């Protein structure tokens, strides 16, 4: 599947295209399919997310999209060395799942 991601203009936070807006949780991300590049371009022009771009992902074991590249998996979670600062501070296995 194809996801669209970027960093929020105001906060810089990693953000994912949900189909009708943006969410910081990859669980909300929508498969943008063939539309992906067009949506990214449109969203770039809307100037609320910095340089939106398209990435490859697949459905992960927990149903949430799992990006193909480790860099995007780190982005989706947060720094693996500071799980307390990630989006899953209470999941001790969160960092391991990124690898």
């Amino acid at each position: 599947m194809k996801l669209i991601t970027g960093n929020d203009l105001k906060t810089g936070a990693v953000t994912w295209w949900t189909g009708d807006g943006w969410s910081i949780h990859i669980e909300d991300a929508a498969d943008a399919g063939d539309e992906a590049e067009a949506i990214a371009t449109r969203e770039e022009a809307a100037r609320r997310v910095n340089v939106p771009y398209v990435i490859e992902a697949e459905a992960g074991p927990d149903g949430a999209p799992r990006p193909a590249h480790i860099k995007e998996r780190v982005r989706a979670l947060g720094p693996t060395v500071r799980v307390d600062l990630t989006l899953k501070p209470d999941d001790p296995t969160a960092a391991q799942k990124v690898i």
Partner: protein
Amino acid sequence: MYAYDQYDQAMVDARVAEFRDQCERRLAGKLSEDQFKPLRLMNGLYLQLHAYMLRVAIPYGTLNGGQMRVLADIAEKYDRGYGHFTTRQNIQYNWIKLEDAADILADLAKVEMHAIQTSGNCIRNISSDHFAGAAADEVADPRPYAELLRQWSSFHPEFSYLPRKFKICVIASENDRAAMRLHDIGIRIVERDGELGAQFYVGGGMGRTPMIAPLIRDFVPLDQLVTYSEACLRVYNRYGRRDNKYKARIKILVHELGAEEYTRQVEEEFAHLLDQGVEPPLAELERIKGYFRDPDMPDAGQEADRSDPDFAVWLDHNTHAHKMPGYVSAIVSLKPVGGIPGDATAAQMRVLADLAERYSFDELRIMHTQNVVLPHVRKADLYALWQALNEAGMGTPNADLMGDIIACPGLDYCSLANARSIPIAQRISQRFAANGKEAALGELKLKISGCINACGHHHAGHIGILGVDRKGTENYQLLLGGSEAEDTSLAKITGPGFDELGIVDAVETAADVYLRERTEGERFLDTYRRIGMAPFKEALYD
């Protein structure tokens, strides 16, 4: 310490106002990211993996308690309670919001700090010896010269758009504690026949094409320091390659022309510049020197009491000889076992500010090894200092030992990374704390970068580790034999890379080869240089 005059302050304040306006226009959607990016980078604001990242300049790594306290306040108020000290003696914040960026710069400006020229193809923050003004072996305090060059290079109109970034380092001792020869220009202040002058090493660097800078002039009189620097930059600005980003650093120009031809062109330019009035009057240098006068350090005549064995270990590893009797420079470790190299919490920064004020004449230094120095501590105060550091988790006695690892942010934070650096550093420090080999190994400098850009100095590690991407998984190459000191050398790759766990074993294997092969008094690096790569390879791959 240098204090801003009205010009410095006016320039910095004006820049804050300008950037505030630019941020507002970006937030209002009036600027695109393409338009805004070069503007934010001119103010040290990057976009990294999880947020904006702000890099704040700490000129030649020197700051006072008040400044450190503001760094702590920023970490707490605008970030997530910590900052990361870097190999270029700066600090980076990882969780900055664009909405706050101008306010942060305004807070910094109040204590004479900024983020100008911490990014982009300009002359970056000038680095120096972290023991400057304190070291027993220096011929002079290098910082006034670094400060003179800072003023010359700040907003220098001719050099604001160089082919690539430009890093200058100034030291003033035979012993190199600042990786001087791995800079675009490395300057060493030397004494000849009772007169001070500057040696110029030009064209060093790390990154994808590491090079050791050759000496191009062994004595530039100090009243020609700026003029000679200008000549070096001018030749580079004119002929440095702009067609290929990877060949744009001065090291490539010097290498392609040959040091001799580059030098000839510099000398020609220099002769031309000499009567152009480029050099500031010597009185300006004298004025600057006035800010760096030694504090009044009466000899208290007392040695530290070594009766506490843990303290004695710290004393042996984490203090450095001072030029004044009765004093030492103390190294504060930001490398607790299993910790994140170079990270300090706001609370730790405040402790450092307090300790600097109480014990070190209100001075602090950031080391390129991502630790902190209290430069002028009375020996009689060391025990109390050590206790306070220990309480704040900053008393690990590991300077220049295996646990004192340099690591760049790597894939946990950096958008250019191939692999994570920090977890590797954490595992190695834990492994060697557990196996008890750290003390036996002695001086061993391990440096890790998450990609070929070499921000973690892996080329200069006695042991270096480079993160690479192997078909989408993290892989780590092992390098041996580098040094950033006066015996500068570049490390060589041992062979095929290792996975995340394998690299930790590989480091231990290399350490064991050294323990087996070393002769009396040899450091890891010395043994490697004597026996070469073969025995290590054999142990690693057979």
